[in-house]
């Protein structure tokens, strides 16, 4: 352990004071700064962390080996900056943990709560409402009103859809754009969901391919939407993928919907992708001529807000729930290839 005092002005680096040779005639006691003697003959500076990481003067140590260093402002400043940068790095890492894992935990709790309150509500209305069943939604911001199933993303893939797309709503689960169509209705039933964190309901939205079922459960019905053909598939649809059995009812849409494909990436400003006729915000089509679409939006690429990933699906099937068989589910839910 060596100690280098800061080089004083005008002295070469590495210079260190040397004890003067002993004068035989000296009669006054000498204070040796480099080799301080026992207590009383040396100056002990106030407790201060030295550059070796140890704290304060260590009386027990061999005083010759490690004399307490004097105050060194430059060193303190540099060290403090280093500590600040390391701390900032730790905080940013912690933010990643928060964003990717922690919000999942929080949102899972909120999602469970929304699901169980929706289940209770459906059950209560089944018994209270009795035969007076019909399409009825209890829409309130942040409250669940339907469930979404995407069998292609796994048999256990289901989320409760809440009303609204504010940050607070989307913390709970996928959110329905207020004012857009409701499940099964003509127009565009538009739903937004997080891609990363917050339960990440739409994390794998890019893995859904054309004809894959997106099933929506409401209090009274099951609605089966299927993804429209993608840009590459439109040309040879009828002879190609469109011939597959699960693609029944799925075909490139015509008329005002011409050019609408199953998956697209748009800029965040393109709000017209969730218009009743997507990309045609100003087109006022009578409800009777509107197709029943469902559009899912999320961010893309992952961890970025630069673009939006959009999935357009079309209603192909609808099953009314049978109150006598509450556990009956549509066969589309088993399409988990």
């Amino acid at each position, binding site marked *: 352990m060596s100690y280098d005092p800061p080089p004083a002005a005008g002295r070469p680096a590495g210079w260190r004071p040397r004890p003067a040779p002993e004068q035989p005639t000296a009669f006054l006691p000498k204070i040796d700064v480099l080799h301080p003697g026992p207590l009383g003959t040396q100056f002990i500076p106030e*407790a201060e*962390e030295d550059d070796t990481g140890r*704290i*304060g003067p260590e009386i027990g140590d061999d005083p010759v080996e490690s004399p307490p260093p004097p105050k060194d402002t430059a060193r303190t400043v540099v060290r*403090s900056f280093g*500590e*600040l940068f390391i*701390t900032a790095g730790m*905080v940013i890492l*912690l*933010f990643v943990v*928060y*964003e990717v894992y*922690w919000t999942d935990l929080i949102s899972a709790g909120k999602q469970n709560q929304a699901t169980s309150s929706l289940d209770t509500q459906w059950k209560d209305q089944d018994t209270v409402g009795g035969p007076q069943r019909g399409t009825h939604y209890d829409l309130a911001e942040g409250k669940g009103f339907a469930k979404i199933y995407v069998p292609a993303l796994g048999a256990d893939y289901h989320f409760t859809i809440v009303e609204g*797309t504010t*940050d607070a709503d*989307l913390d709970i689960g996928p*959110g329905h*754009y207020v004012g857009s169509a409701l499940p099964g209705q003509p127009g565009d039933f538009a739903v*937004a*969901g*997080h*891609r*990363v*964190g*917050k339960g990440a309901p*739409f994390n794998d939205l890019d893995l859904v391919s054309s004809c894959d079922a997106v099933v929506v459960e409401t209090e009274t019905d099951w609605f089966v939407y299927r993804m429209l053909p993608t840009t590459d598939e439109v040309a040879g649809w009828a002879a190609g993928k469109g011939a597959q059995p699960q693609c029944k009812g799925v075909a490139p849409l015509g008329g005002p919907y011409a050019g609408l494909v199953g998956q697209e990436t*748009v800029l*965040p*400003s*393109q*709000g*017209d*992708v*969730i218009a009743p006729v997507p990309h045609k915000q100003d087109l006022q089509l009578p409800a009777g001529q509107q197709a029943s679409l469902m559009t899912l*939006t*999320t*961010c893309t690429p992952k*961890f*970025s*807000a*630069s673009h*939006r990933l*959009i999935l357009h699906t079309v209603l192909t099937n609808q099953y009314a729930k049978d109150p006598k068989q509450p556990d009956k589910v549509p066969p589309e839910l088993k399409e988990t290839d």
Partner: protein
Amino acid sequence: MYGWIWRHLPGPTAAKIAEATVLVLGIVALLMFVVFPWVEPLLPFNQVTTG
């Protein structure tokens, strides 16, 4: 900074370790429950709606 905090924690080393742990946990909780939820909507990571 950390040295200064360590020196100002009272008690013997064992007590200092306990106090430092409590401090760290408190700061992590503050970040996780207050600071990050506040700062997150301001950052361009996870915006999923259009329009």
